[in-house]
Each structure stands twice: as structure tokens, then as C-alpha cells.
């Protein structure tokens, strides 16, 4: 190789030949990050794999009577069967739709009520005890009344999910707004920011992390209330699949519905988690 190589060529050479040995701190960091997340996935995946293996063993070696505990492959077969008849897709779609709709409505209402209670001492005094009492009512207690008022259709289910999603957002937002650093609020006032401008400039950005964790709790609660709504008086959805399978003694479909709820719930939570990380980078 001659000595008159231009620098850019030399750099390209080095990049091509010696990349694994000679890289910058940024690449090293990225590689370490990938290794960390690979470790996390391996750690998090170990227990489910072990549980499925135990499950399989329990059915294969007849530790549990076969009609009470279906084998994993029987659950998969039941899933394929329902899917091919278009039922599994329908149940999942309608459940997800109810959760998302109810979650959006409930979270928006929780945000508004939480902001009012968190910002105004007067509203806090008037509203907080009543809202607290309404929150204390167990989810299932609403169902008969909602069915009588709103019927068996979508309205009663979405309303129940919204009730479930409202309170976590309300509680976290009201609490966080009450505890925004008074120094920052005073600074804002000193610079002429009042009411809505103060809210948008100082208070709301300060509680964004709290809002996100409230939303995350609300989504979990939304799934909880969805199943409550679907267990009583419905003809579709994963909750209906549960109650129907109970009636037919279809253990395989029961397991299928529970697994579906777990996987979809975890997925929606993970999606919020990704949004959370992006927002915290900006506002945290």
C-alpha cells in the first residue's frame, strides 16, 4: 500500500477492515445498550417459557385431569378454530375498541376534573370528597344500573370502562398539580404569567410525568372494568368468551381468553411505555 493515500480513503479502509476493533464510544455504548436489552428480554422471557414447560408437563404426565387443564397445544387448536370461524378476531376487536374508546373518554374527563381540583382550593373542597366516594364504588356495582339506563349495547360497556379510566388520571393529576414546585409557580407569577398562561407554561409541563403514569394506571384499570362489563350481559368480547366458555365447560377457550387478555393488556401497556419514554426525554 502506498503512502500517498488520501485521508478519506484511509478512513474508509479502516472502517471496512477494522470496524469491530476500532470504534468510537458512541458505537460502544449502542452495542452495550443492545446487549442490555437482549439480557432483559432473555431474563423476562425465561419465566413464561418455564411456566409453559411446566404446563405442558402437567398435562402430558397427567398431574392434573385432562378435562380440567387443557394442554398448551389444545389451547392453540381452540384458538385456531375460533380464529378460522372469525370469532376470536371479533371478540378481540370489540374488546380493544371498547377499551380504547372508554379509556379516551375517561382519561379526558379525569384530566379535566383533576386539573380543576388540583388548581383550585375551592373546587378541591367542594368536589374531592364526592369524587372520592364515587371512586370507592366497586366496578361491578355500576353494571346493573348502567344496563338499565343504557341497555346491553356498547354505551353501557364504554361508560363503565370510562369510569374505570377516569379515577387513576384524576388522582394523579390533581395530586401532582397540588405539588408543583411553589418556587416555579411564584417565578411564573413574577414574570406576569397568570391563569391559563401560567397553567400552560409552568404547571401543566411540570405534571406531564405524573399524567403519563396516571394514563398507564388508567389503561390497566380500563381492561379491568372491560371484563367486568363483558362478564355481565354481553354477546361479544373477550369477557363474553370467558363467561360463555365457563357455561360450556370449555377450559381450552377459558385459557385462550385469559392468555389473550394478558398479552393484549401487556402490549397496550408497552405502547404507552414507549410513548412515556419519548415524552420524559422531552419533559422529565
Amino acid at each position, binding site marked *: 500500500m502506498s503512502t500517498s493515500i488520501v485521508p478519506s480513503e484511509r478512513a474508509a479502509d479502516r472502517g471496512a477492515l477494522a470496524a469491530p476493533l476500532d470504534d468510537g464510544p458512541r458505537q460502544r455504548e449502542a452495542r452495550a445498550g443492545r446487549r442490555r436489552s437482549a439480557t432483559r428480554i432473555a431474563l423476562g422471557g425465561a419465566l413464561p417459557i418455564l411456566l409453559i414447560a411446566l404446563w405442558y408437563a402437567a398435562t402430558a404426565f397427567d398431574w392434573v385431569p385432562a378435562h380440567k387443564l387443557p394442554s398448551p397445544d389444545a389451547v392453540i387448536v381452540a384458538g385456531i378454530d375460533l380464529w378460522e370461524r372469525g370469532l376470536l378476531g371479533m371478540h378481540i376487536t370489540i374488546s380493544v375498541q371498547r377499551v380504547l374508546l372508554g379509556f379516551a373518554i375517561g382519561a379526558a374527563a379525569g384530566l379535566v376534573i383533576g386539573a380543576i381540583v388540583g388548581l383550585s382550593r375551592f373546587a378541591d373542597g367542594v368536589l374531592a370528597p364526592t369524587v372520592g366516594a364515587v371512586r370507592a364504588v366497586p366496578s361491578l356495582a355500576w353494571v346493573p344500573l348502567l344496563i338499565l339506563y343504557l341497555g346491553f349495547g356498547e354505551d353501557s360497556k364504554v361508560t363503565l370502562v370510562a369510569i374505570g379510566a377516569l379515577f387513576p388520571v384524576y388522582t394523579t393529576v390533581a395530586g401532582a398539580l397540588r405539588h408543583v414546585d411553589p418556587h416555579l409557580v411564584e*417565578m411564573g*407569577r413574577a*414574570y*406576569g404569567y397568570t391563569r391559563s398562561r401560567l397553567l400552560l*407554561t409552568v404547571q401543566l*409541563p*411540570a405534571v406531564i410525568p405524573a399524567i403519563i403514569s396516571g394514563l398507564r394506571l388508567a389503561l390497566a384499570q380500563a381492561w379491568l372494568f372491560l371484563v367486568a362489563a363483558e362478564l355481565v350481559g354481553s354477546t361479544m368480547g373477550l369477557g363474553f368468551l370467558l363467561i360463555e366458555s365457563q357455561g360450556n365447560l370449555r377450559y381450552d377457550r377459558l385459557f385462550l381468553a385469559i392468555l389473550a387478555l394478558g398479552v393484549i393488556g401487556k402490549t397496550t401497556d408497552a405502547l404507552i411505555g414507549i410513548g412515556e419514554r419519548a415524552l420524559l426525554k*422531552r*419533559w422529565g
Partner: protein
Amino acid sequence: MSLSQRTTTLESPALPVSLRGVGRSFGSGRKELPTTVLRDVDLDVTAGEIVALIGPSGCGKSTLLRQISGLDTPTAGSITIDDRSIAPADQRCAMAFQEPRLLPWRTAARNVQLGLARGLDRARGAERVAELLELVHLSHARDQRPREISGGMAQRVSLARALARGPGVLLLDEPFGALDALTRLSMQDLLVDIHAAEPTTIVFVTHDVDEALILADRVVLLGSEPDLPGATIRRVISVPGSRPRDRADAELGELRAELLDGLGVPSHHSHH
């Protein structure tokens, strides 16, 4: 956009401050007697002057400053800026606090922007922010967040934010009190430069006698008098010489001893 146009819109003229018989008591409950913190404070600050408020802790220095800014209201007497009484959170003033109080989710530049006068057009605002960051030597850190910069840098951002609107009165509440000794000295020099560049009226609270003597035209010593409740002005000292001042100046040494005596601290100073 011409330079003269910019200076007229952004830098309002320095304004005079006048305090007449100002007092403040706390706790007006029926059972307890109100506690008097300040009483009978009379003070005239001329436009463009730098006045230091000094006194033992708890003597009401910060309260007095907050009253000038309209963040607190006197229970006796009156305060005027440019012969007009003070509005709540008076926008002719700008305040820098002991803590930087920056919004942690905003960059340095966006924090300075918060102090701009309302209604300023975007381009001119951005220009002003850049100019101020330059003035406090932070142009390189404009896009950094408060948690990424040092305490001294954060305090400089806070100072730039206070200057952003071109305030008629700049109020500083122990602005360098939480900084290390060396950073504090350079911040004092910076404030002298800032006042030369934008000669506004400055009232600042400090518990550092040297800081008061290096920066102020007059030093106001607050303290209590025997058998009387609350603090009031004990002494006003005019500091000779123009800024920047020599920190080792002998005449300042005499005044330093006098102020320390006034604060009840033995100065161990031998008169020559």
C-alpha cells in the same frame, strides 16, 4: 430593523423607587398578636442606582425586596416605582431569586425567553435572547437543559431571564448566595458589566458585606433597634469610587469594618 429602534422597544429606562413608612407584620389571627417584621422603612432609590440591602438573617430584607416587586404587600406605608404605586407582580420589575428557578424541561435559551415582555415579535425576541446569552457568556449553552449546567451557569440564565424585558427595576434576592466563593466573585464582575451594558436600577439583597461594597452605590443596613419590634433601616452608607472597584481598596476596608460592626460582628480591624 435599526439598532436605535431595538433599544427603544427593549430597554425601558431605569426607574426610581420610593418607599415611605413601609412596614410588614404577619399573623393577624384573633388570638395571637401580629409579629412585626419591618417598620418605618423610608428609602429613595434613584434611577440607575445600585442599592444593596444587608442585615442579619430574618430581618426582612427579602420581604422588602418582594414588596418592591409586588409579590408581597406592605401592611403599612406605600411603595412607588416612578411615582406610580405597585401592581401585584409589577411588570416594571424583574426578579432573580436565590435559586435559579429555571423550568427544567426548557433549554437555557427558552428559559431566558420566558422573561421577555409580552407582545414582542418572535424575531426580535429571539435576537434579544441571543444578545442576553452573549452578555452572560452562555451562547455555547443555549440548547442545554438546567440539569446539564452548573449552578453558576443556571444563575446566569436566571439573570439573563430577569434582564430579558429590559426591566425598569432589577431585583436580586441573594442571587449569588448559593454559589462557591470563586464563582461568586466572577458573578459580581459580571453584574458590574451587565449594569454598564444595561444601566437599570438594581436593588439586591445580600449577606456578604464585600459583595455589597463591590457592587453598590449605597449600602442599606437593616436591623432592629433596642426595645422596638421589627427591623428598619439602621444606616445608609454611600460607597465611594466608580465600578469596577478594587477589592483590596483601603477605604472599602474601613467601610467594611463599619458595616460588620453594624451587623454586630467584630471586624478585628485596626484603624490606621
